[in-house]
């Protein structure tokens, strides 16, 4: 279909339209505090010139990676075990359901109390924000395995461990990857919030600092734009992982 | 023509001329229908039989107006088919009933142009006709496969269409239910006398139900032969004539009648 080839033109045109409207709204406003697209670009250039862009992006990514990986390494095996044993799920589910709605940010005083102000507190917050969703994803993934797969495994004489390795893990993989992707997005959102409060580098810090130390709203919005783009890239990266052939068997829709 | 022969008045309901259908995807074109020609008389029960994937569902979709043929024309009552129309209702394999509506809600779905009183009485009539009395307020999730199929037929009939287009409607049912449903369908058809086009891959089903059977070839498909089933209803499925006709169709499709 001829569509395919010009598939990028219209979305970009739409973004361009929004940028124009934004610029227009800013130039018409009486306060000249909120920056337009050009000023934002200028802000980004500024950051690059001072070598801050790379430094801050790296700092934020670093915290996300640590918190996310730690959460995954702990939550997934734990969640798979809990999902596998009915009684464990009965025991822990209510507790998880109570912890889950507590915003990671509500943990900030506790985090600072335990880890002081710094990277560790931020990583802890990210860890928390990823842990519960991943735990629930793993539990849910196990519960959704069709009983026929497990029965077939047992029918062929697999031991309990064999069923776990050769049926359970492959069967849950697609759902886990989707869960990881969504949770990575959450981690990225939380890192920004955590940095606004508990550290002194990173994109979240940039946003707070730029405002506090001189009302540099161009840097604020520049920071927001960069956050958005990186978040998008992370998401797309995970999606291509989901798309790889060996995982494809599960996908009927997003 | 012998003297005294009465000419049967055959009013043509549907006329399909030189139907071609080619699907193009990613630059590759797949011809599915290749010069299909046939007529359907008013009030007739026509079955279209063919192997899976031969294009019979495509043909039926074209008749229903959901697809436009790449070549040729389909005319119903002399009018060219341009799109879906409540005068010819499609019946799917029970997956077509709306799960968020009750039995009454489903049957009444197409009746939005009627007054409330008319709607209520018509819905009640068709609930009785398909044998779903007592299940008026039930949701499809609570019904068996056979009941859902009856519901779908009732929904289709409620708008009094001229034509019913059935696409392997009994395919998802077990074989016992299928036999029962065939009888039900014939019973209903005798009451309503719509024109019916019924697509199936089950040859026995076709010979049991139809006035005429159109046998389709494999892809790219056309109509190999139209067989007239001249056995009066109720048909004995062990009678020699039945077996003769059935075996004839099997041969048309290149299949032996011994396993």
């Amino acid at each position, binding site marked *: 279909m001829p569509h395919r080839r010009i598939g990028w033109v*219209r*979305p*970009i045109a*739409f*973004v361009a339209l929004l940028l124009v409207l934004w610029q227009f709204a800013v130039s018409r406003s009486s306060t000249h*505090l*909120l920056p337009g697209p050009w000023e934002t670009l200028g802000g980004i250039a500024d950051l690059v010139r001072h070598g801050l862009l790379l430094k801050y992006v790296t700092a934020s990514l670093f915290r996300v990676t640590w918190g996310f990986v730690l959460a995954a390494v702990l939550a997934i095996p734990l969640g798979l075990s809990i999902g*596998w*044993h*009915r*009684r*464990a799920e*009965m*025991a822990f589910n*209510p*507790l998880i359901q109570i912890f*889950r*709605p*507590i*915003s990671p*940010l*509500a943990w*900030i*005083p*506790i985090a600072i*109390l335990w880890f002081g102000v710094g990277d560790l507190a931020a990583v802890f917050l990210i860890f928390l924000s990823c842990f519960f969703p991943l735990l629930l994803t793993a539990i849910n993934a196990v*519960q959704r*395995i069709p009983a026929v797969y497990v029965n077939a495994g047992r029918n062929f004489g697999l031991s309990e461990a064999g069923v776990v390795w050769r049926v359970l893990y492959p069967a849950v993989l697609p759902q886990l990857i989707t869960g990881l992707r969504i949770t990575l*997005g959450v981690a990225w*959102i939380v890192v*920004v*919030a955590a940095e*606004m409060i508990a550290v002194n580098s990173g*994109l*979240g810090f940039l946003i707070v600092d730029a405002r506090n130390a001189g009302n540099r*709203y161009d840097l*604020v919005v520049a920071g*927001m734009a960069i*956050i*958005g783009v990186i*978040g*998008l890239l992370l*998401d797309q990266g995970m999606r291509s992982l989901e798309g790889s052939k060996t995982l494809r068997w599960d996908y009927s829709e*997003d | 023509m012998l003297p005294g022969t009465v000419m049967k008045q055959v009013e043509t309901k549907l006329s399909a001329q030189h139907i071609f259908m080619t699907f193009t995807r990613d630059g590759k074109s797949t011809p599915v229908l290749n010069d299909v020609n046939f007529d359907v008389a008013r009030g007739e029960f026509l079955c279209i039989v063919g192997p899976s994937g031969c294009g019979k569902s495509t043909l039926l979709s074209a008749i229903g107006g*959901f697809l436009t043929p790449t070549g040729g024309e389909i005319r119903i009552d002399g009018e060219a088919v341009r799109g*879906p*129309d*409540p005068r*010819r209702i*499609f019946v799917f394999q029970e*997956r077509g009933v*709306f*799960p*968020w*509506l009750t039995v009454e809600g489903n049957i009444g779905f*197409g009746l*939005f142009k009627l007054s409330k009183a008319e709607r209520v009485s018509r819905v009640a009539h068709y609930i009785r006709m398909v044998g779903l009395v007592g299940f008026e307020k039930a*949701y*499809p999730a609570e019904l068996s496969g056979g009941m859902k199929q009856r519901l779908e037929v009732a929904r289709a009939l409620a*708008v009094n269409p001229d034509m019913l287009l059935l696409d392997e409607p009994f395919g998802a049912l077990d074989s016992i239910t299928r036999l029962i449903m065939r009888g039900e369908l014939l019973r209903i058809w005798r009451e309503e006398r719509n024109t019916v086009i019924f697509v199936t891959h089950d040859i026995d089903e076709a010979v049991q139900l139809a006035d005429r059977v159109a046998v389709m070839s494999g892809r790219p498909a056309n109509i190999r032969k139209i067989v007239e089933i001249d056995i009066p209803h109720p048909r004995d499925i062990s009678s020699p004539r039945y077996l003769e006709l059935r075996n004839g169709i099997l041969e048309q499709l290149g299949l032996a009648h011994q396993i």
Partner: protein
Amino acid sequence: MSALAQPRKWEQYFWPLVAAAALLVLWNYSVVWTKTKVFPSPLAVERGIAELAHKGVIWAYIGDSLRRVVLGFCAAAVVGIPLGLTLGWYPRVNQVVNPTLQILRPISPIAWIPVAILMFGVGELTPVFLIFLSAVFPIVLSCVSGVANVPAIYRRAGRNFGLTAPQLLARVVFPAALPQILVGLRIALGIAWLVMVAAEMIAVDSGLGYLVIDSRNSGKRYDLVVAAMVTIGLIGLALDLGFRRLREFRSVRWGFRDGA
């Protein structure tokens, strides 16, 4: 899943209680063993909750937080559902708009705070705006997805019966997509609750989020901090459970076979 015997009915209550008791015991003893002067024991938290209830503070703050969430969430639903349905209905429009949404979505509502304060000042509108922002994306996306996932058969049947496009949208597409839309709304409510806490920590001076920060800042009252956290958890859970109740309606129950 595991081959152990099927659990009995009473076990549904037994095991969570065991786990909760174990947690409380562990908590209590870690406080005692580490001889921490700051971190509260379970008992201290309970007393803290009582204190807040007694002073009436907790009820006022719960009311404030709930009010903000409800306002922001409803605004997000009112804007998001029609927008999502439209985008889902016209896939070409969606193709154009979607990349923009995907870029805006990862920008934490927290990052919007300076801009929000600039636009709305410090007051009620800022947290409501932030909540609105955080809830609107999941709602729009689940509506788009819900519409896209309506089986073609239903649309076909609708067209077959002679429905016009607006009728098709209202009588077939919307009811068919409703289960998925409800899931999106429930997720959005959960996110709204989380963001509310964050927004209150920064931009206002009442509410549960504010209570968390304030208890620490004015006097290191960690017992109140944890008390506030527990309250946040319980109410958030209640909101989620309440929403799950909506799935019981038979006109949507069909869409929830697996316990979404």
